[in-house]
């Protein structure tokens, strides 16, 4: 498998007000909070992606999946920024103010891990479809070890997973993206809709979800978003 297939979005470049270059780098810079997520018009990125999209590509499905995944992450990131500060359990957040040197280090490490992942994918693909012998003998009684400590760890793992991730930092959630999609669709049946109008009476969480809903509708091709300038008014237009 070639390297290119390993990174479906490797050749997707974006041309934005705040950044121009490979999309993958933009993600890395955003994740490390070097570019403010507010400065990045997600709508434009979706547009650029749709322009670059071609069903002729051999890996178009993989590209779409990758893009949808990362776009969803961006939406999450943006909505998190809009909600009260999340108190992370790990100590990583102490370094909110990274020096340029630390930032380069962090980004470099992430890039290496990402490259390592690409190599791994090649290894796994090359070695897939090899099945071991089924002619195994059962182990002799008494040979098998069950580690009690691992049983305890497994209990925690198995039983804790059903607990929903904590959303206490978000406050009570009384609305879903689906709800807001419905609201937008309903309003749009009466013509173009101003985002500002839409979120006027909403709190920050609702506004974030409304934004996510708008982006989601846009990526589904049901809505087109118009924002003549960064931070300018955003208008949702029904697609014919």
């Amino acid at each position, binding site marked *: 498998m070639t390297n290119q297939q390993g990174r479906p979005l490797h050749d997707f470049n974006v041309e934005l007000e705040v950044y121009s270059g490979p999309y993958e780098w933009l993600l890395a810079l955003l994740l490390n909070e070097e570019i403010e997520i507010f400065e990045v018009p997600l709508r434009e990125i979706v547009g650029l992606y749709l322009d670059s999209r071609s069903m002729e590509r051999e890996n178009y499905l993989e590209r779409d999946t990758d893009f949808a995944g990362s776009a969803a992450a961006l939406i999450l990131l943006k909505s998190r920024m809009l909600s009260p500060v999340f108190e992370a359990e790990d100590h990583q957040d102490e370094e909110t103010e990274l020096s340029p040197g630390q930032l380069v280090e962090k980004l470099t490490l992430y890039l290496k891990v990402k490259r390592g992942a690409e190599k791994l994918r090649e290894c796994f693909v090359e070695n897939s479809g090899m099945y071991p012998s089924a*002619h195994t003998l059962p*182990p002799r009684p008494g040979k098998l070890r069950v580690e*009690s400590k691992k049983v305890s760890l497994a209990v925690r793992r198995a039983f804790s997973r059903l607990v929903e991730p904590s959303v206490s930092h978000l406050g009570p959630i009384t609305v879903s993206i689906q709800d807001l999609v419905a609201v937008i669709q309903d309003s749009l049946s009466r013509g173009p809709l101003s985002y500002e109008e839409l979120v006027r009476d909403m709190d920050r969480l609702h506004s974030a979800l409304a934004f996510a809903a708008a982006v989601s509708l846009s990526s589904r091709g049901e809505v087109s978003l118009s924002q003549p300038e960064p931070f300018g008014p955003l208008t949702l237009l029904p697609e014919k």
Partner: protein
Amino acid sequence: MSESPSATALVEAILLVSERPVSLEGLASAADLSRAEVRDALGKLGEKYSRERSGIVLRNVAGGYQLATNRACAGAVERFRKEARPAPLSGAAYEVLSCVLYLGPMTRGAISAARGVNSDAVVRSLIERDLLAEVGTDRESPGSPALLDVTEGFFIAAGTNSRDDFPPLETLVKPEELDRVRERVEQSRRPSPVPEEES
């Protein structure tokens, strides 16, 4: 090997992944070959896996074909079985065992419900390894599925005498987490809420 393996290679590969003898038809259908091609392939494999030279032999038994160790190597094979360190249990296997240890005896469905992921394959391998066994049936659940419990072999393998030797569940999992798990398990015993299709 190129992308189109020989008939012999196909038959050989299938025989490796089948513990039980495979019929001529079974081989032909899986390898997408004619019976004549399979017969020809088996002839070649008979030479490759001959009793005279090879540690693995091709047997024609019980109406099918099977790879097996050469009897002449039985001593080494048995020594290997005595010495071999069995494969360590996977994370999934530990989860299933801990579910059954703390919440069992329980059905396959209840195990999957407690873990939130289908666990049938893991359960199968744990039964093969004599760490789980069927101990009865759950008559209250639709279809009276089998109830599974940990075996004596499990306690021996864990170096313990009984359930009491493991830390109490309450010290490991928060009460609200436990309630959720119990609720899921309980739900799995009820008839499916999915409306039945008319037939």
